[in-house]
């Protein structure tokens, strides 16, 4: 703490401080208009958390947004029916707006949710001063919104080919060029009473309940949506712990406590006794009615340096998703070493999080060079995989902020097997050369580069997103690694929308892709290689009957050792056919100032505002806020 005091003492003593006033005065005389300066905004005794987002938000209509930062705000303004236990690892579903987590009925084709009575929306002029209770019809309305063509929901896929009657109705209105009529009854959605809603699915799907823990899949009040019309992005009204108090787009998002929120108690049942973060959370939060924070101020800052400096300058209470360029400065000896002395003096803590996501390079399985299912095709892909120096990617491109991926499944999700290893994805250039030689990929025209067994020249093409430094570096690494085993590769930089388009129609040979879990089940990752998802999400265009059969089989089984066995078998098939070069699971380092209490990052949930506390005296002493 003393160091924090020293920091401010230093600033107050500097003679250069006067420059700011002089320059400010000079500018003030030039600008004609003037306003009365109001008092400083944040009341002294309120518990205020300040932080930065590393991207600009789009808005807060939960059914219309996709970017994780907008969704992260929605998570605090609205309430999903289910959520995840805050401390349980691996993650565990927990009821939020419903009384209990529903069991799949009728062989996993029906799910019934019963809302807790007495949950109220935040006050809004639309409600005309009356308290508005959350009812089952609000859930029905929200689910229908996902499929309303006018809403253009980026998550409409969640409810496609799922609920009986919904697809048929959407097809009908599209053909008739009509608007979505929310009063039309859908066979698979039944509002049984004021608080109970039931969904009937076409096929068994035990992962369906995960959708209801997503921060997008939240009930909304129909009258609010209709009243604000096209401006719903700026008028979120939910039942969550916070309300949107102020929003200066791309500059400032202020949340304050929802006066109608009923409060939440931390469940400590699944806490890890050996985890210091869990113990801190219990010490700070257990038994208290959450949230404890009065106000959250979020500043979107896209540039890395100002985001980093704002934390170092004590403007922000914690720094999440630390920019790679500054990781070395904060952790000079790597993630397992000590923090930089300046952070140690400030008693800053570091929380490292392995993201439930995967980064990979897809081979286009329909491509005449890198595709195919014959032994020589597989051998060629495996050789490319062995040639790729993944350890260097982690060390250099990612500054050590990643772990090796051994399967397409992100860590921490149900079905992720940390013991699953495959030698087929290891960096081994000698093995790569041996495989290429063995299967006839040799230099036939003596130009110094290997050719196909039939004599065709090999010039592989790697497509990556324009203006992305990380992707440019990965492309350069691929070119270097393949050149080392005699394979020529060219990299092509393309605009984001063109890259998506090219991948959707199979107009590429190799391309780097990332996927973050929408819900914590391996199926969310394994669907990326399911044959019928070609042109939808299976960019590698991998079509293997055995894999597809296992995929469908797993959908019909709830989480169990039997299903894990199926997932393991699917991983084996993928290792054998190598449609992807598994890359990494990225990690994030979060740095937290000592006055922030109870901090823990959940792998699936985006934010932690509800589970934070602030030592106001310590914060004020350190930051002068």
């Amino acid at each position, binding site marked *: 703490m003393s160091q924090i005091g020293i920091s401010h003492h230093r600033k107050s003593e500097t003679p250069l401080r006067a420059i*700011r006033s002089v320059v400010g005065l000079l500018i003030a005389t030039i*600008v004609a*208009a003037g306003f009365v300066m109001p008092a400083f905004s944040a009341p002294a005794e309120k518990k205020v958390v300040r932080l930065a987002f590393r991207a600009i938000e789009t808005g807060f209509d939960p059914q219309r947004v996709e970017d994780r930062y907008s969704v992260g705000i929605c998570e605090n303004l609205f309430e999903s029916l289910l959520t995840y236990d805050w401390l349980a690892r691996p993650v565990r579903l927990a009821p939020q707006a419903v009384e209990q987590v529903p069991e799949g009925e009728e062989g996993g084709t029906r799910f019934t949710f019963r809302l807790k009575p007495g949950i109220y929306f935040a006050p809004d002029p639309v409600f005309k001063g009356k308290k508005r209770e959350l009812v089952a019809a609000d859930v029905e309305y929200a689910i229908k919104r996902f499929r309303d063509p006018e809403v253009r929901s980026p998550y409409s896929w969640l409810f496609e080919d799922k609920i009986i009657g919904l697809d048929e109705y959407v097809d009908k209105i599209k053909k008739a060029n009509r608007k979505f009529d929310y009063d039309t009854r859908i066979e698979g959605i039944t509002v049984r009473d004021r608080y109970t809603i039931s969904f009937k699915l076409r096929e068994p799907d035990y992962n369906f309940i995960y959708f209801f823990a997503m921060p997008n899949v939240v009930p909304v*009040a129909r009258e609010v949506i209709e009243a604000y019309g096209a401006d719903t992005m700026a008028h979120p009204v939910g039942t969550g712990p916070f309300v949107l108090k102020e929003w200066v787009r791309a500059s400032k998002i202020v949340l304050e406590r929802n006066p109608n929120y009923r409060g939440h108690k931390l469940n400590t049942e699944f806490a890890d006794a050996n985890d210091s973060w869990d113990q801190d959370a219990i010490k700070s939060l257990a038994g208290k009615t959450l949230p404890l924070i009065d106000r959250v101020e979020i500043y979107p800052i896209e540039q890395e340096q*100002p985001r980093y*400096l704002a934390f170092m300058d004590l403007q922000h209470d914690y720094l999440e998703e630390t920019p790679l360029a500054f990781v070395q400065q904060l952790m000079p000896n790597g993630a397992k070493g000590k923090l930089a002395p300046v952070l140690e003096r400030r008693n800053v803590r570091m929380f490292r999080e392995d993201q439930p996501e995967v980064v990979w390079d897809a081979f286009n399985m329909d491509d005449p060079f890198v595709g195919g299912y014959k032994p020589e095709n597989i051998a060629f892909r495996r050789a490319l995989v062995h040639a790729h120096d993944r350890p260097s990617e982690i060390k250099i491109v990612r500054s050590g902020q990643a772990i090796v991926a051994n399967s397409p499944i992100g860590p921490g999700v149900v079905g992720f097997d940390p013991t699953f290893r495959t030698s087929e994805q290891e960096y081994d250039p000698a093995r790569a050369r041996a495989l290429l030689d063995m299967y006839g990929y040799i230099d036939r025209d003596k130009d110094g580069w290997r050719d196909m067994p039939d004599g065709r020249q090999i010039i592989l093409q790697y497509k990556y997103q324009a203006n992305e430094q990380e992707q440019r570096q990965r492309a350069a690494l691929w070119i270097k690694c393949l050149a080392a085993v005699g394979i020529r590769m060219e990299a092509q930089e393309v605009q984001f929308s063109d890259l998506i388009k090219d991948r959707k129609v199979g107009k590429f040979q190799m391309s780097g892709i990332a996927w973050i879990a929408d819900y914590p089940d391996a199926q969310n990752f394994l669907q990326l290689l399911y044959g019928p998802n070609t042109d939808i999400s299976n960019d590698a265009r991998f079509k293997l009957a055995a894999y597809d059969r296992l995929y469908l089989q797993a959908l019909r089984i709830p989480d169990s050792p039997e299903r894990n066995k199926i997932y393991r078998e699917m991983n084996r098939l993928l290792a054998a056919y190598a449609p992807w070069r598994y890359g990494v699971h990225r990690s994030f380092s979060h740095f937290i100032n000592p006055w922030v209490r109870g901090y823990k990052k959940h792998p699936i949930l985006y934010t932690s505002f509800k589970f934070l506390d602030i030592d106001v005296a310590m914060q004020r002493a350190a930051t002068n806020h």
Partner: protein
Amino acid sequence: MGAYVLRRIGQMIPTLAGVMLLIFVLFNAVGGDPALQLAGKITNKEQIENIRKQLGVDQPMYVQLGYFAFEVATGFNCTWRSYTEKPVPPKVDAKADPKVAPKADAPKGGCEAVRSWATNEEVPKILATRIGPTLTIMIPVLVLETVIALLLAIGVAYMRGTLTDRMIMMLCTVAMSISFLVYIIVAQYFFGFKWGIFPVQGWSDNFWKNVATYAPLPVMLAIFVGLAPALRLYRSFFLDEINNDYVRTARAKGVSENMVMLKHVMRNAMIPILTNVGIALPGIFVGSFLLESFFSIPGLGREILVAVNRSDFPVIKAATVYLAMLTMLINLLVDVLYKAVDPRVTFK
């Protein structure tokens, strides 16, 4: 003069039409498909088609161009709502919550303000709310930069060939050789973080707080970067005038050096300087995306950058057309100002 101004305004219409055509062709040729960007992680052809239909980009090119022209002329969009059915009457559902009173759908066919594809915010509102922070930075930059460059330029022009002149010119060359980004990163680190003279970044709702606290560092940086080229340019304008006969005559008549430089030389050098300021003037309305991005200023430059990254064409198109119109109007204003500066100028 009135006829001249009217004629110039008339000439703006075909110029603006040309600019619009160019923007339209460029965006459609190289802009990519916005539907793919908006469609989400998992999508199918049907959904992409639906989004294209909603955005109106499924229409033939000439129809889209017509919509664009209409949007520019009126600020309204009449293409998004392509559903043609009659309003759906409200139904009374006994089971539903009585507090939820469904309304009839809005009548079809109405126009609405052009909206951002990414955020659904009204584009005129976006431009209106972002212009304030941009001008708070850019007006002081333009004024201070011009005044300081003028004073320094007249000084070094007067001292032409001396060591001071050479040193200043050399410093200008060095300053111009360094990227603006480097200045920003270094200044933000030292002035903002290390020495604590200015805040590292930020912006507030209060105008005076912005002017006194958040604007000084970005303004100083922009002035510092813009000063060197302006100084060199203005110096050359002054040198052109200093060597003219009328200056020699004035000196021969015993006019003081201050009067020669500040009245005769400066006034005659003002026409090219005014032209230069006129060229720079539209730029103050779009700001510097680098400054705005690094100092978290919610201005227009940053907004345009975000719109480009999101393929948010309505915002990009509006900003481009707005800038083109401003440029033409400012050019006209500068031409009119020539007359005030130099009485020899006549309008034809």
